[in-house]
């Protein structure tokens, strides 16, 4: 049944393409219908799911002569991310309800992206996974390049090329794995069983891992993320940070680490205190955590702050993956979910609630608008989302980062401490952005728009901002609700995620994959 998440999305694309031109209202309704149905299907799948099992959704021969199968399946990890995709999709549409410019195309690209993402999370055939992975690239480009803002074409092209280069690396790894195994199959489960030669894994692992991790924002390949996020329209930033970055992290876990676990083992000799690819990646992710946070601290553009914060938070995911213990891995998966929700919320506030009303994201300009009074709903939402993003307990991010840190304590104690530094800097940049954007000293409550700001917004000084609309409120409440729900009752997801690591796919975890 879960396969319908994919079909419904692409069906939505078709319907949108057939709609008469210039009918924005029906376009968004169609998109909404499709996204909500997808979410409902995902939810239904989630609640039917028995923890620990691997549900085969579809398994048909596709290119029989090459052993390629149309194989959709789901374990707890996929399911969590499918659920995230559903939520992010609905949220994104709610926050792009006001799109009038080429709305039909916008939602068509949007749903195509969503469909691709669902597909990646559900594919258990690597060829199929790769197909969906690449399907997701193109809509991103168009959404950003057509509906984006600041340096949109540059950001879109950068994102597309980075993604494509990453997927090229993955493709090399996949082809090599297929050929070396000689098993004429792309089935993850089969390939995970195949004992690839150690030397082969040693180079194939970093190739595939980094290929995926580029999309997950691994430092120093993260530079697409801030520019891309900033250039993208709100819904796309939400999806980029919310689910697309997860595609990369998911690929790292599902493909690179599952098929080439020996690639994590120690090298013969250490270089600069690094003894394996695992050390290298852990180091890069911790650099990402701290560097992303520090850079976010000095940004002048509100959205860049959030963009770099994504890099920092995704560092936790990668660090969690590199801990190679169940708690760290489950933390990483939970962090994927949590960051998807929280980053989506932050981008919604910055991109939709603030930017579309003030037409500026310069923190120094926003400071003069006293938005805390002018749009209290946005301020409250941002305070809550900011608190969640800082990793305050009670929100999903805390439970996730907590597990990652426990895992890190076990394997990389120093990195755990450095990650703590990253959290503190995270608090600092969030506070800074929050204060500048919402609690700036105002020119007076009667004039929410100062002269300069009014000029930017193209309206009269003193004109009030449009009130926060109902879809925006709905979206914000939904995302906050999820973040709090998971924060207070993480069992909802953990009970599904944790048993997944007992499956044969993760045998290497118990064999102690790497010393």
């Amino acid at each position: 049944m879960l396969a319908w998440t994919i079909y419904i999305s692409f069906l939505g694309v078709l319907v949108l393409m057939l709609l008469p031109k210039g009918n924005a209202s029906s376009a968004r309704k169609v998109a909404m219908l499709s996204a909500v149905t997808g979410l409902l299907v995902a939810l239904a799948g989630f609640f039917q799911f028995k923890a620990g099992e691997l549900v085969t959704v579809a398994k048909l021969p596709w290119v029989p002569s090459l052993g390629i199968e149309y194989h959709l399946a789901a374990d707890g990890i996929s399911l969590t991310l499918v659920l995230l995709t559903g939520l992010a999709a609905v949220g994104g549409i709610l926050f792009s309800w006001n799109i009038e410019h080429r709305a039909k195309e916008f939602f068509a690209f949007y749903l195509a992206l969503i469909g691709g993402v669902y597909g990646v999370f559900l594919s258990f055939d690597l060829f199929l996974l790769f197909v969906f992975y690449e399907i997701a690239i193109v809509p991103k480009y168009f959404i950003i390049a057509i509906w984006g803002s600041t340096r949109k074409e540059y950001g879109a092209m950068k994102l597309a090329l980075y993604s494509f280069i990453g997927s090229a690396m993955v493709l090399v790894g996949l082809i090599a794995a297929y050929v070396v195994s000689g098993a004429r199959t792309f089935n993850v489960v089969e390939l995970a069983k195949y004992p690839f030669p150690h030397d082969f894994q040693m180079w194939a692992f970093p190739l595939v891992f980094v290929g995926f991790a580029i999309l997950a924002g691994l430092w120093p390949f993260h530079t697409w993320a801030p520019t891309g996020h900033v250039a993208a329209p709100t819904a796309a930033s939400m999806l980029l940070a919310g689910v697309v970055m997860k595609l990369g992290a998911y690929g790292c876990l599902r493909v690179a680490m599952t098929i080439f676990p020996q690639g994590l083992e120690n090298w013969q000799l250490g270089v600069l205190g690094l003894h394996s690819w695992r050390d290298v990646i852990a180091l890069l992710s911790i650099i990402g955590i701290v560097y992303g946070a520090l850079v976010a601290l000095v940004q002048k553009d509100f959205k860049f702050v959030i963009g770099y914060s994504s890099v920092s938070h995704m560092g936790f995911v990668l660090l969690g993956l590199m801990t190679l213990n169940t708690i760290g891995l489950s933390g990483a998966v939970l962090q994927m979910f949590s960051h998807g929700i929280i980053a989506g919320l932050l981008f919604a506030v910055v991109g939709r609630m603030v930017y579309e009303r003030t037409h500026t994201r310069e923190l120094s300009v926003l400071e003069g608008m006293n938005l805390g009074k002018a749009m209290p709903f946005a301020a409250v939402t941002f305070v809550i989302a900011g608190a969640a993003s800082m990793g305050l307990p009670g929100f999903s991010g805390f439970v996730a980062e907590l597990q990652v840190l426990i895992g890190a304590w076990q394997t990389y104690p120093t990195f755990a401490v450095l990650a703590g530094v990253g959290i503190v800097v995270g608090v600092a940049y969030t506070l800074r952005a929050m204060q500048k954007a919402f609690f700036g000293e105002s020119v007076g409550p009667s004039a929410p728009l100062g002269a300069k700001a009014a000029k930017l917004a193209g309206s009269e000084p003193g004109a009030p901002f449009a009130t926060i609309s109902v879809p925006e409120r709905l979206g914000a409440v939904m995302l906050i609700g999820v973040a709090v729900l998971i924060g207070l009752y993480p069992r909802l997801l953990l009970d599904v995620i944790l048993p997944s690591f007992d499956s044969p796919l993760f045998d290497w975890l118990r064999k102690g994959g790497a010393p």
Partner: protein
Amino acid sequence: MSGFPILSVLTLLPLLGGIMVVGLPDRKLARSFALGFSFLSLAQALGLWHTFKAANGGLQFVERADWIPSLGVQYFVGVDGLGLLMVLLTAIVVPLSLLVSGRVSERAPLYHALVLFLQAGLFGTFTALNFFHWFLFWELSLIPAFLLVRLWGGPQRAPAATQFFIYTMVGSVAMLLAFLAIFLATSKPGGAGVFDFIELGKLAARGALNPALAAKLGWFELTGRQIASVIFGGVLLGFAVKVPLMPFHTWLPATYAEAPTPVTMLLTGVMSKMGVYGFLRILLPIFPEQIQWLRTPLLALAVVTIVFSACAAFAQRDLKRILAYSSINHLGYCLLGVFAVATAGANVLAPAVEKAAALNGVLLQMFNHGLTAATLFMFVGFLEHRSGGLRGLNDFGGIRKVAPVFCGLMGIALFSSLGLPGLNGFVGEFLIFKGVFPLAMCSAALSVIGILVTAIVILTMLQRVFNGPLNEKWSKLPDLTLAERALVVIPIALMFVLGLWPRLILDVINPTVVQMVEQLKF
């Protein structure tokens, strides 16, 4: 123990109240609702105090439920004498603070809701016994506090609030990391670790914690003991910032000075107690060995805190800042007591008795300081209101002549803070010093300097503000109104009652303290 989940209700009530109040359109309505909720909480806390079986020093009103089994997280709340005392203090200070918040006109519903949220956070912190939700409340009380300072504070509120938040967060993150390490060390293969304070205390008492840390955590070839000390350092940092212990105090004067006065009451009255509470509930039972090991430097820090904050208070010219530093000073005594008991006390005649005295003193001092400091800030608030924002030490003079009631009542509070016998401040300090002298003679002796300087500071304040020639500017200064008098009479009365009849509290806390002393093995 099953039954009515009274402690959960205690925490949830202000939370619900806050949610209700934030949606109210009207200032007056919000205010009366918030007050109503805070009085309900007070009634509930008094009820708890009443039903608490004092003779049994252990945990009561316990609620326990599985929460996140994979992380060893249980919903586990309960209070003993210590927790109950703190709950009561919170329940008393919050309505007082709300009562003097009448002048908050801007975004009043939000203000009142935030105070109620803060109260919920405090109740949660003082009743939670599992790290997970204890930390949740610990951190979440920070957000309303931050916003209250940030949005309703004085001119320098932005840097002050940021400093406050970041300092506390640094401490919290260090503490979080430390607890995660403990969790990891105590986890069995394939199972979850321990987040339960009581359980951890038992482990530590058995001496099982350090070996576990050594076995599970290899870090730079440190020995188990050294690792445990690093972990201890992390937790210590968290609490030291909150109390604060010098040199982690720099956020405090600015924050207290910039916060609106009712919020300062909350900050000093209750939030600063969170740190001391943490020392008693967490550090002492879980890290006895480390505290003992590091006792001398820690005592030195406590003494430094006491003496330097007193001297710093002397150098201040802003009434709020003076009181802020004197707050640090008073909490320094608490820490002195806490650190002093961390010894086997082999050369002391009756170590258990002295330890019990010191800890009883610490608890009393926490309560008393909460009450007195909150009252003093309340008075400063009245004064500030009358003077139009002026609160310099030298801005006034001779106002005793025009506002005798004000000066009389504030004088009582000041003397309580100074530790005049017959008032509540005396009992706590006396018990602390009684216990500490035999246990840590030198530190106690040095700390007396702090008492002296504080006395000078407070007397100077009395003299500069109340006595001397009347500053003509204030010849029209109105005295306390009837409502204000009615308001301040309550805490003043409490000061007398507790000063003359400390058993009222001692009877409740003593069994807990005795148990605590028994459990502490050095």
